[in-house]
């Protein structure tokens, strides 16, 4: 049988990174094929090539045995390929129908819009596949799960036969994810082919027929799901036996550094995102905040740094109330922050590496009443940072934006650490980093902890939380479900709490 999609020898380089290193992949019609790998393994790049968002340097694509040169998304759509991206690509002010219809291929179809007719077929289509969506609703009023169903409808409406889903469950609750899986199974039964990008082993075991594991841009192996197990997959994914606890020294935690009392914060649209969070972080410990992305973590971090108005509650650092102090005073209060978006928030891409190492502390390197930057001092400081944190290349005048993700993160993290803060707030420290950089960043965090810094770690990667934290707090819809010691942590229990069960309601809770 000819595979539905066959990628042969795909190669793609981005500046110094070989994102796809001669990858082969073949997917059969009607199967759910999982593409498993860590962040940065090259899964998304491979699928972007198949969808025409990136163009391959080398290699060939065959769709149903036909050689296909896919250069733009339009080409892919014409071949029946559809992709749902990690961040949804809907237009909020449009209705569901308008979102589904826009971008439909014009050829053959009338240039005039018939939205009523389209709405009727969307309704029929959504009932046929068990996707419960009102065609007349405005997308801005929908929940995340509903938005995803609109994305699926959009593809089905265009007769997509191959659906690519990039980490579709990252923004879903466990229940919504189960609902999605049912839809996908029913689609596969109706001759649709599905490629499912994920780094979660249990999803692979739950939903896929076959799985291809990627690591460092290479396709390592393709296996039948029924004849493998999570342990084998994890080993192939990471390249070695996975140890969930990296060696870490015994905790020597001391006095309370950060105290959050009954914090309430809204997001930009006025939605009540953080609802009465109280937490404390002690010196020499890492407190991990676990939770599905979008449950108030970002708003909490931003509120801590006074980047978002606080409606109620207090933040106390080293016995000083910092709830509403200007962010220029955070450093002197002993606070440091590594934001989730290192490119747009944590650094200034157009400035040199050297200047990025003094951001937030520029006055320390100026003279003549803060008018003139002292280049020599800046260079000394930058050289020290680049050396100590092994930033590559060792080029201080390079635009920071040209650094790879891992090296940029070293600059951002190094800048914060070199200030010797007593409190370090870190958001998604290894998101998008390769294995080496991830491990490096994590070790640095542990070193800081051993030095006595209080670290508040916010991460959507449960594995990261488990590997680093001394205590783990679980957040769900802006409320803390419970705080547990990591040596007593059970993944299943954390999973339940991430889905909204409180610690005291857990089965078997003492």
């Amino acid at each position: 049988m000819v595979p539905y999609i066959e990628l042969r020898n795909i190669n793609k380089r981005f500046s110094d990174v070989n994102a796809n290193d001669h990858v082969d992949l073949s997917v059969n019609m009607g199967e759910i094929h999982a593409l498993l790998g860590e962040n940065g393994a090259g899964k998304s790049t491979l699928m972007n090539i198949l969808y025409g968002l990136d163009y391959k340097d080398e290699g060939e694509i065959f769709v149903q045995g036909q050689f296909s040169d896919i250069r733009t998304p339009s080409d892919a759509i014409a071949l029946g390929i559809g992709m749902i991206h990690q961040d949804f690509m809907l237009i909020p002010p449009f209705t569901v129908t308008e979102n589904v219809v826009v971008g439909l291929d014009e050829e053959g179809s009338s240039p005039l819009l018939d939205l009523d007719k389209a709405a009727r077929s969307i309704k029929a289509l959504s009932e046929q596949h068990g996707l419960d969506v009102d065609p007349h609703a405005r997308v801005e009023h929908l929940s995340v799960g509903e938005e995803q169903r609109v994305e699926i409808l959009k593809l089905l409406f265009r007769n997509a036969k191959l659906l690519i889903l990039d980490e579709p469950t990252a923004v879903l609750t466990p229940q919504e994810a189960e609902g999605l899986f049912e839809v996908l199974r029913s689609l596969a039964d109706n001759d649709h082919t599905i490629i499912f990008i994920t780094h979660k082993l249990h999803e692979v075991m739950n939903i896929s027929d076959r799985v291809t594991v990627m690591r460092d841009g290479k396709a390592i192996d393709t296996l039948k799901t029924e004849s493998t197990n999570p342990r084998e997959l994890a080993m192939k994914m990471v390249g070695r036996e996975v140890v969930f606890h990296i060696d870490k020294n015994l905790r020597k935690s001391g006095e309370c550094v950060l105290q959050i009392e009954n914090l309430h914060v809204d997001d930009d649209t006025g939605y009540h995102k953080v609802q009465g969070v109280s937490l404390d972080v002690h010196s020499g410990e890492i407190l991990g905040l676990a939770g599905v992305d979008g449950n108030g973590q970002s708003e909490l971090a931003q509120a801590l740094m006074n980047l978002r108005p606080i409606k109620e509650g207090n933040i106390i650092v080293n016995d000083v109330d910092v709830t509403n102090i200007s962010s220029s005073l955070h450093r002197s209060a002993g606070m440091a922050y590594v934001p989730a978006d290192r490119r747009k928030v944590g650094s200034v891409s157009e400035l040199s590496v050297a200047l990025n190492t003094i951001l937030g502390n520029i006055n320390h390197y100026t003279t003549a009443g803060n008018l003139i930057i002292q280049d020599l001092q800046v260079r000394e400081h930058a050289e020290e940072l680049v050396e100590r944190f092994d930033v590559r290349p060792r080029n201080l005048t390079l635009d920071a934006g040209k650094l790879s993700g891992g090296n940029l993160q070293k600059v951002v993290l190094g800048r914060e650490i070199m200030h010797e803060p007593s409190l370090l707030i870190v958001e998604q420290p290894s998101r998008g980093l390769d294995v080496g950089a991830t491990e490096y960043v994590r070790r640095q965090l542990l070193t800081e902890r051993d030095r006595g810094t209080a670290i508040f770690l916010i991460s959507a990667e449960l594995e990261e939380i488990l590997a680093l934290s001394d205590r783990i707090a679980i957040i769900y819809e802006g409320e803390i479900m419970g705080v547990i010691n990591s040596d007593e942590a059970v993944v299943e229990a954390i999973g339940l709490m991430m889905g909204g069960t409180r610690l005291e309601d857990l089965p078997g809770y003492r």
Partner: protein
Amino acid sequence: MKGFTGPIYSYLAAVLVSMVLVSLLLALFRIPIFETYTLLITGSLGSMTKLGDTLMVSVPLIIASASLVITFKAGLWNIGVEGQIIAGAVAASFIARELQMPTQILLPAMIGAGFLGGAFWGLLVGLLKIRGGVNEIFGGLGLDFVATGLVVYLVIGPWSRKGIASTSGTEPFHENAWFPTVEGFRLSPLAVSVSLLVVLMVIFVFNRTQFGLKLRSIGLNPNSSYRFGIPTSRYILTALVLGGAVAGLAGVTQVASIHHRLVPSISGGYGFLGILVVLLAGYRPFLVIPIAFFFSMIAIGSIQWQLRLGLHSSLGGVFQGTLVLSVVLISAMRLLRQRREKHVKTEE
């Protein structure tokens, strides 16, 4: 990028606020306030002739604003409309000067030429953006200057009046090239019809066609539009060409219905004034008509200020500017209040 979307009363409130502000200014110079406003009304609507003049001025403004709606909805800050109006006027003038034809043929030919001339100028902006990566703001502004230079060159150079090298304009066109007017008025029903047709076309395109929906989607989110498979570059180019073509029609009405010849200031500043109209209309094409009409009332009525009160005519511009600022102010206040109400709701 969003225009001001507010209910009608917020516009009325803005008119009141700007009237109060302008009154303060008038009081400062001891100018009779009531008389000033009465003159504005009587000067623009007081007789059929004056109403006709006001309508006449509103025609190119409505057309220029309709052109801007097309590009603004596609997310393009098109400030090249001035140049496109000029290009349309130059093209129509060329036909009017070169073709000796009966008026039934000449006028459609001028309209067609103006359409193409504006489209060409819009195409240049689009190509600069898509092929050269030049932002439409800079491309459009640059081409505005080029167009102005071109028209001055034509007026004092190849198309100058015999024996006179003057910037006051070319020889008037033959009457066959004039839009027909109603007896006793300067207003041409043809020009009014063109402006209304253009607005209806824009409404139709954005509400009822695939093309319009795609343009709106590109305007709201170009990135995801590309991922839907919409060839965004081609659509942006089409929007700029179509916007230019429509702006060219404004140029045609300027030469064929108002000046009857080519003058250096042929664009009348409508390309810029239109930006204010479109922002006030919140990109809603049907609102363009009353807002443009109101702006024309100020433009025509303020002529009387100069004649009767000895005020400088630029006071009309001050009033228009104050009006825009008042709308901005009131819409900002409304948004703030909404946000506060939302907060109260979530707390309940």
